[in-house]
């Protein structure tokens, strides 16, 4: 790395260490910007965009690292702001909530956690809200995963529920109210085999307890003994495979939460009714949190998401304004 890079790196490291170890008497943490400061920041960002527009029209595209810094600022600063913006609930998310509301207490839900840490910012908030809602309504959870990291992410959801409601640590019993069957390799073949017998595919749970020893699984042979399916999916294997097998072949009523990358591809299944509902990306997670009255990370992150989207849209508009102007000048 050259001298300039070393100096920049050093300055960043020093700044971060100052932020970490600065005494509370100088800087009270957590930092929250007042509405006036937040408004000033928004005005400054707009002025910077005007500057970028002028430079781009002059034919001087700004360097990509400047774009990176601007996107980073657009993502970071809203985390310190206090704005809460209202937004409507989409029909697909409402359908998920309505389907869950129709379940009776004691109903068994098969939860498939098919995601890993990179997708956690989008899917973990909706999974956490779902588990809290299920525990509140006394719905029984049969957790498993087609991704190996899924069952650990599921344990994080359980732990988040227990942190918010410490009384659930004693009132919610493993094996009676929830069970974690773990992971099996095989993708769609796992679902296919589960269609005949859950026990054949998961002879032991995550903690090596035999399937037959788990009280809540006594009368659960396959999908026909489960009342509902809930899938949190980041890709393949995931929602598409669950729809193709569990829903279409074994008639399991199912809803899903997907990352925003996957959600557009799953909309046809919602339209046909193969999926009861869909929570897509962080906005879907935020809507579900609002419906279940469990405001969490998704709602906190939504302001940053808004700023980031606005930044990308403005960058595209600026680039195209310059492009159209250039084309007219050539003509």
């Amino acid at each position, binding site marked *: 790395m050259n001298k300039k890079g070393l100096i920049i790196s050093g300055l960043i490291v020093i700044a971060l260490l100052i932020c970490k170890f600065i005494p509370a008497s100088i800087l009270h943490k957590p930092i929250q910007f007042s509405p006036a400061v937040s408004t000033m920041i928004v005005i400054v960002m707009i002025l910077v965009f005007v500057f970028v527009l002028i430079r781009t029209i002059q034919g001087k*595209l700004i360097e990509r690292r400047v774009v990176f810094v601007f996107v980073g600022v657009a*993502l970071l600063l809203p985390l310190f702001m206090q704005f809460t913006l209202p937004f409507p609930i989409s029909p697909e998310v409402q359908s998920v909530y309505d389907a869950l509301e129709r379940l009776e207490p004691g109903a068994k839900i098969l939860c498939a956690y098919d995601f890993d840490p990179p997708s956690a910012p989008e899917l973990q908030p909706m999974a956490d809200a779902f588990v809290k809602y299920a525990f509140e309504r006394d719905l029984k959870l049969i957790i498993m995963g087609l991704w190996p990291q899924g069952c650990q992410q599921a344990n994080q959801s359980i732990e988040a529920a227990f942190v918010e409601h410490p009384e659930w640590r004693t009132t919610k019993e493993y094996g009676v109210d929830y069970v974690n069957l773990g992971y099996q390799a095989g993708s769609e073949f796992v679902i296919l085999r589960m269609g005949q017998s859950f026990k054949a595919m998961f002879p032991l749970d995550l903690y090596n307890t035999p399937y037959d020893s788990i009280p809540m699984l006594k009368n659960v042979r396959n999908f026909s003994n489960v009342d509902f399916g809930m899938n949190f999916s980041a890709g393949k294997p995931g929602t598409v495979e669950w729809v193709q097998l569990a829903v279409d072949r074994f008639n399991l009523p199912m809803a899903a939460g997907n990352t925003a990358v996957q959600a557009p591809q799953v909309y046809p299944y919602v339209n046909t009714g193969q999926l009861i509902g869909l929570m897509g990306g962080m906005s879907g997670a935020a809507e579900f949190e609002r419906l279940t009255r469990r405001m969490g990370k998704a709602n906190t992150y939504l302001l940053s*998401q808004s700023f980031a*989207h606005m930044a990308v849209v403005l960058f595209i508009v600026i680039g195209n304004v310059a492009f159209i102007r250039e084309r007219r000048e050539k003509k």
Partner: protein
Amino acid sequence: MRREIPLAITFIVGVVFAVAYFIPHYPFGKLQDYFSDWFAIVAAFAIWLGALNLVKMSAIKVGRKRPDWPLSVLIIVSFLITAGVGFYEGYRGLFASQTFSFRDPGTAFDWIYVSVYTPLSATMFALLAFFVASASYRAFRTRNLEATLLLLAAFFVMLGRVPIGDLLTTWLPPGYQMSQWANWIMSVLNTAGQRAIMIGIALGLISNSLRIMLGLERAYLGGD
């Protein structure tokens, strides 16, 4: 025999799964169950193959002192530490007085998952946020009608799916804000396009699966 046996295996196994959809009873149902169980075991070995191949390639690089060979040492060390801790915690959990899973919070394996694997994997994918913004600024141009349609759809969806879209369109009548437009684009226009792609892929996949089962498509066998 190097090609005939694999082709026969492909045909028999493929036919069992296809027929078992219509005849789930004995013997096809039973064979499907056996094959599904074997698939899970073979899939595990396939993962092992990938991991061991990585170690083999890294070891070759170290042995021949190729450029950046110290990084290959780091790959092998990381692999051995993670795998070693996982096996140790697994056996420790099996024989403990109160059995626990090697993945339980508090185990060394879970510590590696939370402190090493999670931040690295999450940040790798998160970097794309910056590149997508930079690429959009430099390359996304409305050169023709099709590109303009793509751009407009992206705008409506990006702004409509976050609260800022409705904030910018509060002056419109209720039911016509940006979020409603985004919903309509996703549930109607996007559904139509995705459905066309889905049906096209399905038809292609059906014909290709038949070709594979009948031995007409042999690319997966590689050369002799």
